[in-house]
């Protein structure tokens, strides 16, 4: 009789521990880790421009595979460390800036502002090694790119 109640007690204890581990594990997963996002303002052009820094080769290859321009110059670069649920702003030019929010499950939201007005907001899961690009034409023979990547 005593052995039976001891077994029952142990079983209940194991069940409670397992339940506690499951709940705490889920809570940890639901938390957003701090992230570091690299934002680059890039000029895409078909003409070579001396004195300007070219983008890293991985970015150039990716952009050149999709877009017609062959030269990509990095005009500005900002590194943003964003805490859980926080939002950081980076000014990329005289009139434009981006706001990057760190959301749950590795998802980020990027808002592009120009002359004080929000143009677009994009939300997606940004993995390490992948890129989010906001782009547009600037003149007849060039384009601007805002390339965001997540640092490891």
């Amino acid at each position, binding site marked *: 009789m005593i052995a039976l109640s001891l077994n029952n007690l142990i079983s209940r204890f194991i069940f409670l521990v397992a339940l506690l581990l499951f709940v705490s594990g889920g809570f940890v997963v639901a938390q957003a880790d701090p992230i570091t996002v690299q934002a680059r*303002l890039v*000029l895409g052009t078909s003409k070579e421009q001396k004195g300007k820094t070219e983008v890293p080769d991985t970015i150039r290859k*990716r952009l050149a*595979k*999709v877009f017609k321009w062959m030269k990509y110059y990095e*005009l*500005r670069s900002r590194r943003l460390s964003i805490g859980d649920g926080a939002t950081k702003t980076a*000014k990329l*030019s*005289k*009139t*434009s800036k981006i706001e990057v929010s760190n959301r749950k499950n590795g998802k980020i939201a990027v808002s*592009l502002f*120009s*002359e004080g*007005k*929000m*143009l*677009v*907001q*994009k*939300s*997606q899961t940004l993995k390490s*090694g*992948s*890129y*989010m*690009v*906001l*782009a*547009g*034409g*600037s*003149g007849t023979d060039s384009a*601007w790119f805002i390339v965001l990547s997540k640092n490891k």
Partner: protein
Amino acid sequence: MNENEIQLKVQALVDGELTGPEAKEWRGRLETDAGLKELHARLTAVRGLMTGAELPRTLPESGDFHWSQISKAIEREERQAKHLARPASGANWLLRWVLPLAGVACLMLFLTLQQTTRPDLGISLGSDHELELSIDDLDVMTFNTGDDAMSVVWLDYSLDLQQDEMDLWLD
């Protein structure tokens, strides 16, 4: 009976066109009338001279020319109706089926070649990404690369790339 009718009757008798009683009557009148007898003799002589001397003539059309033309017209219309109602011949079958099929095959071949010659940009359009626009008349195009390693939002907007003077000073 006038003179002309009498002559025609005599001529008919010479030609053997009168029936038995009538011919007998007119033969009797020839016996009694010398003028008629002389006319009969003259016509018989002329007939004798003409026998075998007439040129044979054949009519280009049969005597029932009018009816034969109607009959031919009816036959021609019937032939045309049968021709129209007749099932498609080999040539018609070719026109109805083989040529359209060949056209479709050529179109598919053309499209296939177009697809194979198109440059592979590795772009996909499906994604679970969310996009929110604040300006209604802003043209936007969004796509992902095939490996999903790069998402692009293309805006029909010219961004001012000039650096802020304060940033320039800080940099």
